[in-house]
């Protein structure tokens, strides 16, 4: 209490300097919090999009499939299985996919394509596939009067094969039983643009893909969407239990998106951490400024510290006095920092700023840098500022603690 009182009085002594010091720490806090909010918010938006678009939050596959996909490793799928899965807590959407490759024939040319077998209704609910249709109509899933299933084709494949809406498409591949697979489909839609990831896709209704690859009642992946991508790990554990109960004899795996898209996840993390470097440079600059003022205030009071020490203040108490003074400044800066950063971060979260050039990923346009309003974006900068304050106070604090009283008092 005594030290706190002294600290407060000392701080109030040179108000101009106190205000300047608090302001620089405050500025550091706000910049850090807002940058963090925008970084987190933007990555969040991107990851949520990515997981919805590609991996889902958790997948159920045969072991090893996510590392090394192959036609022959499949899991059972049925309406019953998918609705049972949908009813699990926190599960928002479920679908099943078949993934393999084939050679596609148009009029005269052939072109290698990636084949995706999807459940038209469930896929549309879960991913952005339906939004990628740039021409024509999304799959209905039923064969037409001639018994042909519909197919959607990537823009590049369509161009190479010289195919358009309503044209016939022939696929040739190998079935899971080793037989030669070939079938005829009618093109219902063109997907995306030639430079997009889906440019070489051919998307078939699940039933058509099952028939084509001779894998009735099977799929390669069961895709599950939870509440958000942050909770994938919890969902993973939960679904693994469900899988183990449902198929006690099998060794099917629930895998969170972080492991499904390992490389992507690592790149994103590294990218994000790289972005923090500017933050630390900022903190460093603020620290230098603050260190300067704290040192100055300690030097000015050398004589006084000499007196305090002469009348029995222990070196460690003097040290803590300096640390306390700096912490009080840092704490005040954080408090007003939160008050200032809150509305800014809230605005970023709700509105965001428009990017100079909108980013388009697989037909979905990101036009705004978004913020995130979480305890993290407020707590993290506070911890950094308070920690920095302690570090800043170390040197001046030790200096004050080591003072020889007579030498110090001579400066009075």
């Amino acid at each position, binding site marked *: 209490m*005594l030290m706190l009182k002294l600290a407060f009085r000392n701080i109030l002594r040179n108000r101009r300097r106190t205000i300047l010091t608090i302001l620089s720490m405050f500025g550091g806090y706000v910049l850090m919090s807002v940058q963090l909010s925008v970084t987190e918010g933007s990555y969040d938006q991107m990851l949520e999009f990515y997981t919805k678009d590609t991996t889902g939050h958790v997948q159920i596959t045969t072991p090893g499939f996510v590392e090394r996909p192959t036609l022959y490793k499949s899991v059972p799928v049925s309406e019953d299985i998918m609705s049972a899965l949908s009813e699990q807590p926190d599960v928002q959407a479920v679908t099943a996919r078949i993934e393999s490759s084939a050679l596609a024939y148009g009029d005269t040319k052939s072109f290698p394509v990636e084949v995706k077998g999807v459940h038209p209704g469930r896929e549309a609910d879960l991913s952005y596939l339906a939004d990628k249709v740039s021409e024509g109509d999304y799959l209905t899933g039923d064969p037409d009067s001639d018994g042909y299933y519909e197919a959607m084709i990537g823009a590049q494949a369509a161009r190479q094969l010289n195919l358009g809406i309503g044209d016939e498409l022939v696929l040739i591949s190998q079935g899971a039983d080793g037989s030669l697979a070939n079938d005829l489909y009618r093109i219902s839609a063109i997907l995306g643009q030639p430079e997009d990831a889906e440019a070489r896709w051919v998307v078939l209704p699940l039933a058509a893909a099952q028939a084509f690859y001779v894998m009735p009642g099977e799929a390669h992946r069961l895709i599950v969407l939870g509440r958000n991508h942050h909770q994938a790990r919890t969902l993973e554990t939960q679904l693994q239990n469900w899988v183990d109960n449902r198929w006690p004899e099998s060794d099917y795996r629930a895998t969170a998106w972080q492991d499904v898209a390992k490389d992507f996840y690592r790149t994103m993390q590294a990218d994000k951490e790289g972005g923090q470097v500017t933050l630390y440079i900022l903190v460093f600059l603020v620290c230098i400024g603050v260190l300067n003022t704290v040192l100055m205030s300690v030097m000015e009071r050398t004589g006084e510290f000499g007196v305090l020490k*002469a*009348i*029995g203040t222990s*070196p460690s108490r003097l040290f803590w006095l300096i640390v306390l003074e700096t912490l009080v400044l840092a704490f005040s800066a954080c408090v007003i920092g939160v008050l200032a950063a809150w509305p800014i971060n809230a605005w970023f979260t709700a509105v965001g700023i428009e990017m100079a050039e909108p980013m388009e990923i697989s037909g979905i346009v990101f036009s705004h840098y978004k913020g995130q309003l979480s305890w993290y974006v407020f707590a993290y900068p506070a911890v950094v500022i308070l920690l920095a304050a302690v570090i800043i106070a170390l040197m001046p604090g030790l200096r004050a603690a080591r003072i020889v009283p*007579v030498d110090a008092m001579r400066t009075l």
Partner: protein
Amino acid sequence: MNPVIETRQASRHYGEGDTLVKALDEVSLQIQPGEFTAIVGPSGSGKSTLLQLVGGLDIPSEGSIHLSGKAISQMSGRELSDFRRDHIGFIFQAYNLIPVLTAAENCEYIMLLQGIAEKERRERVRAMLERVGLGGKENRRPNQLSGGQQQRVAVARAMVSQPDIILADEPTANLDSQTGADLLDMMHELNRKEGMTFVFSTHDPMIMERATRLVHLRDGRIEQEEHRA
């Protein structure tokens, strides 16, 4: 009796080579409990330097200082500051009050460090400030007090924690003779009634009159000592 404080051939040199100043030169001095000692001598003879060494505020260039029998060179910073807190009261030539604390808080400070209960602290501070004639000025900061008033706060601060020994560097130099005499009477009384030990550096004849022991310094050496009954 064991001395409270003892210097053994203590020297304090400033500078080096041609500019070497022997502010103190092999001074051996024992302060016994209950003494009322005055260190006298011309300006620059080393009085302040001696008091600083005796109080453990400075380190001798040669020789040693013993507080309650223990050499200060063997004390940690913490032990030394605790010793000063609990056993020594200082009155400095330049008052040296803490500018951000009020008169009462300046007095209370050491007792706070000692962990004395609030009620007792308040009572002792009030009584002591009353005694030095500063009743009613408890809540003034040093810069709102005259030099003489500040010196009285400094005296109160040194005495209120009831140390074993008070080291006072020319405590009356900045006071009018009446105030000086009053303060001196008070210290003399504490010495006689409660056995508090005092060591002064002074030019003031009033102090010399009352002293039980006079130590004459010249050029950093003890020139002569007188004991009086």
